[in-house]
């Protein structure tokens, strides 16, 4: 691809725009077009979502029918499941890799890689990202990371098995898979940083004329703030992972205190390190990470609620400020993951207070979503159903967070299934429903055709019902004291009698998984057979809908100029209930040739 300053321009293209590549490789594989890269990330994340879901199925199988063999797994993973029967260390690998893959390889690439790349330039009226070649690099750096993480299942000793949090010293003494886990995430971190820099620069520098910060769609606001979080948080994790890698392969002792004796053998090199240091570093990244995964979904949800309620978003500025508030407070709450870790209990009190405070901007957002629906003219399309599910499930995930924010209550529920229930209400009920909403919403823009509405609604219904049947009972298990990450809960007297509930959850998960087949088929079949969408099928205001579907290589045939905010629906002075951001005010002269963005 030529540099953005390339002067040679085809005649019919607007000023400053270079023509689309013609070769297959540059067009579809090593493309610098943000729309193609966004789609690549979408395929990547859907593929990893399926793998992550499959691992979850195996975990739940063991919890429902402990020790019951699965024939084909005995052939696929003879080391971890000899004769199809799961070993405890393999079980540990499964939940470790399930979380790692879902968080780093499915949710993040989908929200930030796919929607961030596809939507941000279109919504701000730019022709591409600020650094198209960095964008190309970011995707192709993410690919080897995925290859390594999957490959790690097949090395001696199996994949990483110390949880996605990889607490030291356990993670320092685990088999080889842990090293691959570290390498994979270090590589993936580079990819995420490239994307973060790109989104930040693009949002600051590439906005169309008239697109002030407070005319940005909330999706852009959310992705912009998310990218800043990512840029600041990820290096902390990368630093910690390099230290852990050194502890594993170079004999350093960042996280290894003196006198460690493992299985009767003293670790000769241990000494001088601090086990809790890893947790502080990990969660200093890890808590912003939670918001990295939820903020984009919040932005998408706001967008969709406004479009299908045909109403301006309620409290636009409050929504933008609460995104910033969550992002700011997100830096001072990491200790709430460590209340029982041996961290000074007085610090625990401090972190409890900051954690309680961060509930407030989340509450503001929920009430503003309700305010947006109030008095609307609501159409329940598939994207809308998923966006509403986001709101109602995020309420559960947010409220259950208050339990563990309270330090004394956390004494009991920490490291139990209550926590597992909570994070799944935030990450599945929240992030994934937000991602589904975005997928159904922007699919017509991406591929020029609708996904099938009927099948979309069936998929939504099954997902919504089964999701709750799988994850709501987790709170009950946690209240019984069922620890997370245990291979066989029948060992404990206080967990006897929980098997029927676990079986119910597992069966619900299998239905939930089967329902995703509908999504996959709908996704692929609609590319050819879906109803043709046209440029603005939802009659939405934001700029991406003011160009053809799919948009041309250079996004806009005109240079969009923005005259108003993104959510001017049902304005009383107009007969039409939508008012595109770039439609000139009546009576005003059409804009003169505006400055083009490369």
């Amino acid at each position, binding site marked *: 691809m030529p540099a953005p300053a390339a002067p040679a321009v085809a005649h019919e293209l607007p000023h400053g725009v270079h023509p689309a590549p013609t070769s297959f490789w540059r067009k579809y594989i090593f493309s610098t077009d943000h729309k193609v890269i966004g789609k690549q990330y979408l395929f990547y994340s859907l593929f990893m979502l399926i793998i992550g879901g499959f691992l979850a199925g195996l975990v739940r199988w063991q919890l429902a029918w402990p020790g019951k063999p699965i024939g084909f797994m005995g052939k696929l993973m003879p080391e971890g499941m000899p004769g199809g029967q799961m070993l405890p260390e393999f079980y540990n690998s499964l939940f470790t890799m399930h979380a790692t893959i879902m968080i780093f390889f499915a949710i993040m690439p989908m929200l930030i890689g796919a929607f961030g790349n596809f939507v941000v330039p279109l919504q701000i009226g730019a022709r591409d990202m600020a650094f198209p070649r960095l964008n190309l690099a970011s995707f192709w750096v993410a690919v080897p990371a995925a290859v390594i993480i999957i490959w790690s299942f097949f090395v001696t000793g199996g994949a990483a098995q110390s949880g996605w949090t990889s607490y030291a010293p356990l993670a320092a003494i685990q088999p080889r898979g842990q090293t691959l886990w570290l390498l994979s995430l270090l590589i993936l971190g580079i990819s995420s940083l490239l994307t973060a820099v790109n989104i930040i620069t693009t949002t600051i520098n590439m906005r169309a004329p008239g697109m002030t910060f407070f005319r940005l769609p909330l999706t852009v606001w959310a992705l912009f703030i998310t990218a800043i979080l990512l840029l600041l948080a990820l290096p902390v994790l990368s630093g910690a992972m390099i230290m852990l890698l050194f502890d594993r392969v170079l004999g350093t002792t960042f996280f290894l205190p003196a006198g460690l*004796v*493992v299985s009767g053998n003293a670790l000769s090199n241990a000494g001088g390190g601090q086990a809790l240091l890893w947790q502080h570093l990990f969660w200093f990244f890890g808590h912003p990470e939670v918001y990295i995964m939820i903020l984009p979904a919040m932005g998408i949800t706001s967008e969709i609620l406004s479009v299908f309620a045909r109403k301006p978003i309620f409290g636009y500025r409050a929504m933008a400020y609460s995104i910033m508030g969550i992002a700011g407070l997100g830096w001072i709450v990491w200790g709430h993951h460590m209340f029982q*870790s041996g961290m000074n209990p007085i610090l625990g009190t401090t972190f409890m207070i900051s954690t309680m405070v961060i509930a407030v901007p989340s509450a503001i957002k929920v009430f503003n979503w309700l305010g947006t629906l109030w008095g609307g003219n609501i159409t329940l399309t598939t994207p809308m159903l998923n966006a509403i599910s986001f709101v109602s499930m995020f*309420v559960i995930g947010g409220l259950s967070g208050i339990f563990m924010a309270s330090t004394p209550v956390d004494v009991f529920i920490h490291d139990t299934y209550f926590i597992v229930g909570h994070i799944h209400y935030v990450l599945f009920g929240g992030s994934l429903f937000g991602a589904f909403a975005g997928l159904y919403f922007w699919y017509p823009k991406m591929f020029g055709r609708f996904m099938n509405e009927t099948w979309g609604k069936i998929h939504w219904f099954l997902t919504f019902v089964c999701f709750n049947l799988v994850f709501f009972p987790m709170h009950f298990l946690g209240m019984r004291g069922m620890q997370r990450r245990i291979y066989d809960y029948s060992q404990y007297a206080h967990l006897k009698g929980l098997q029927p509930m676990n079986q119910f959850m597992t069966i619900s998960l299998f239905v939930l998984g089967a329902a995703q087949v509908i999504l996959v088929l709908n996704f692929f079949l609609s590319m050819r057979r879906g109803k043709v969408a046209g440029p603005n099928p939802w009659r939405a205001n934001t700029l991406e809908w003011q160009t053809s579907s799919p948009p041309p290589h250079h996004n806009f045939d005109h240079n969009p100029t923005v005259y108003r905010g993104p959510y001017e629906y049902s304005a009383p002075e107009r007969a039409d209930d939508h008012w595109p951001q770039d439609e000139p005010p009546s009576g005003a002269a059409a804009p003169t040739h505006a400055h083009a963005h490369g």
Partner: protein
Amino acid sequence: MIAFAVALLPALAGALPFWLKLPPAESSFADEIDRIFRLILWITGVIFIVVEVLLVYFLIRYRHREGRRAHYTHGNNRLEVIWTIVPAIICVVLALLSRRVWADIKQRMPEDAMHLEVTAEQFAWNIRYPGPDGKLDTPDDILTLNQLHFPVGTKVVVSLHSKDVIHSFFLPEFRVKQDAVPGMTTKVWFDAAHVGNWEIACAELCGLGHYRMKGFLVAESPEDFKKWLAEQAAAGAPQPAAAAAAGGPAPTPAGAPANAPPPAPGVSPPADGKVSVPPADRTPAAAPGQEGKQPS
């Protein structure tokens, strides 16, 4: 499918009181934790129902109809202020209530308590009782494996250590959970109002045997406890077979702590590297309040 779901709802609702129960509360602070739990459950339950009911009501009340227009508004500052301040007040009140209970459980250890040491390892709990001299870390200490007995009505302060990785000392019925971290000493206390048997669970992933890292907790009358402790002392160190079965090394024999390394967690040099290394940061100076305060 829908009919099935509707038929299922009453059954699920009927089961709620059963599932919302917490395990029996045994320690003297367990009820206080449960009280805050139930308070939060009520508050969040009410908010949950109000929000979800409004959500569904709005979806029905404001569903699309031809010719109708949505109400054009960009928001309401007074409402924004209300729904900022009310959640803030609720959260601050919850934090204040929690702070006091937390301080009682984790910040201040009781004065008049019996002191024990628990050293976790993959995948067993080594329990150390003071011997006849009433002091820990002396040659007459009594050691048991996975058996924690204590007299009913007495407060027990446990100093937690770990030999290898992080474990978590979890007594579900006592609402006790505290990580045992190598290179550090962490403390936790509990008591029991009546005699009984419970289990010690490991709550922090510690390796392939994590799920079976189980100990036994027994509260008995002071007389029975004394008798039991004397039996353990007579038996000497616990049977090595039991230790081997637990997948770990033989527990520290009595007498080893005499050459415990100096204080300063994390900076002391590695101990001599043989089996039975005492936790590196243990220091006799760390146990001043413990002397001469033994029960019975």
